[in-house]
């Protein structure tokens, strides 16, 4: 093989430079270019906002669902894995994961109340009776 040129890297450089060039465009120019592409700038902008909102909502949903079942997760301990983001209950160790692609939240943490949380509650009530 005589052709050692790395086409992938070259194409990447080209696209990355085009990406950077977008950041320097004025507000009017970027809207005009979007129109030139045949898209409605306002619609495209709102579509992008929706994409951002969706990610935020999916994370909220995952955090809420596990905490409503008594699980305690550290919201900063989400780890990127093969199937989206993954976290575990600090108390009982059960797992939860979510993906923004479908907005799905799943894991054994969603299938049951945190047993440790119940124990904490029992201990707390017993202490308050004393």
């Amino acid at each position, binding site marked *: 093989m005589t052709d050692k*040129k*790395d*086409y992938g890297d070259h194409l990447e450089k080209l696209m990355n430079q085009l990406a950077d060039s*977008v950041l320097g465009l004025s507000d009017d120019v970027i*809207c005009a270019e979007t129109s030139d592409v045949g898209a409605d700038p306002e619609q495209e902008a709102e579509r992008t906002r929706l994409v951002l909102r969706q990610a935020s909502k999916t994370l909220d949903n995952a955090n809420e669902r596990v905490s409503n079942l008594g699980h305690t997760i550290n919201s*900063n301990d989400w780890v990127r894995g093969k199937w989206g983001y993954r976290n575990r209950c600090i108390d009982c160790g059960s797992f939860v994961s979510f993906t923004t692609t479908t907005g799905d939240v799943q894991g054994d943490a969603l299938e049951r109340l945190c047993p440790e*949380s119940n124990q904490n509650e029992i201990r*707390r009530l017993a202490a308050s009776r004393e």
Partner: protein
Amino acid sequence: MAHLLSFTDTRPPRVPPVPPPALPPEPSLPPTESINACRKSALLVENDESLLHILRRSLADEGYAVRIAANSEEGLRLYRDLAPFNVVLIDYFVPQRNGVGIDLCAPLQTNGTALATAIREINPSQGMIIAAFAYANAGEVPRPLELMHTPLLIEIFKLQSLLAKIEVDRAIETLTSSELLRLQQFAEFRVRGLGRAARGRSWEDLLQEAELRTLIGAEATGKGRHWNKNVDFVLHLTGAMQSISNCWKRQFKEKEACFVSELLIQDAEGQEHSPLDKVASGHTAADQRLIEKDEEDRVLTIFKDDHEATQVLHGLLDGLKKNEIKSKYGLDEKQYVAAVKRIRVTLLGRRNGGERDGKHDR
């Protein structure tokens, strides 16, 4: 009180999670007029002195100018007079008026949730947190349906991440159309640059990944991608997208190499064989190079009738900088900018299904 409910106070004694440290008295608040002139403002509705001290200090540490109300009526009045605030933090059990205990207006309502509901009605997008320290977890906190998605503060140490989340959500809502378009197109070109390493991911995936890492890294710089509020949000997200796409590329290269080596099988004579040798058309490096070469040729073909765009493309493909391209091909600033614009618009147009080959405006 006519609406007193049978909300039996079975909650555990209200013990603040952390004992208040002995600190000198807080300086007096700035005058009412200046509260919204500050960069970040918070309305804190709390009557418990020890909690008030801790929450006020925590908010101040995060850079908020704090306005305080000791009951829900005062909270609503201040909100009406001074809104919007960056965040409203309401105690679940705050009284309706000074000296009045728990008096409830509707099922699942406390004065705290009633105030939160009233504020939600005034401004549905108001960032708000309900502090419910008396409960062990969010599932135990009775609240009306419309507040099910309002963040609950059960443990004081989570305040920082809740505030950061509200700030990111607010930043998203205040992005202008042009900023959103910039983010979209930046993500689009970065994903295209990945080629096969994108593994079917789209610009939406890249943008969401950048946002999620920001949300996860909201609290600590060591995790996720912390947003330094002195940095413009768009620049932060583009920086995040840049490093994420670089990471995806790296992982793709590493995985491919790893994949082949892990598949090696040793026969009885100790000879190593790869099952890929028997595959008629495997994903070999040569194949990949061909695909990438085809893609490069395809891009060049689109601009075959546009001499300046082709020159700029060759320059960019060779990794040259703007000035180097201009000087190599004798282009002035106007010619260069116009050529880059044609390349951008044409490539994005093809994403949108436009048939613009060779028809781009000059």
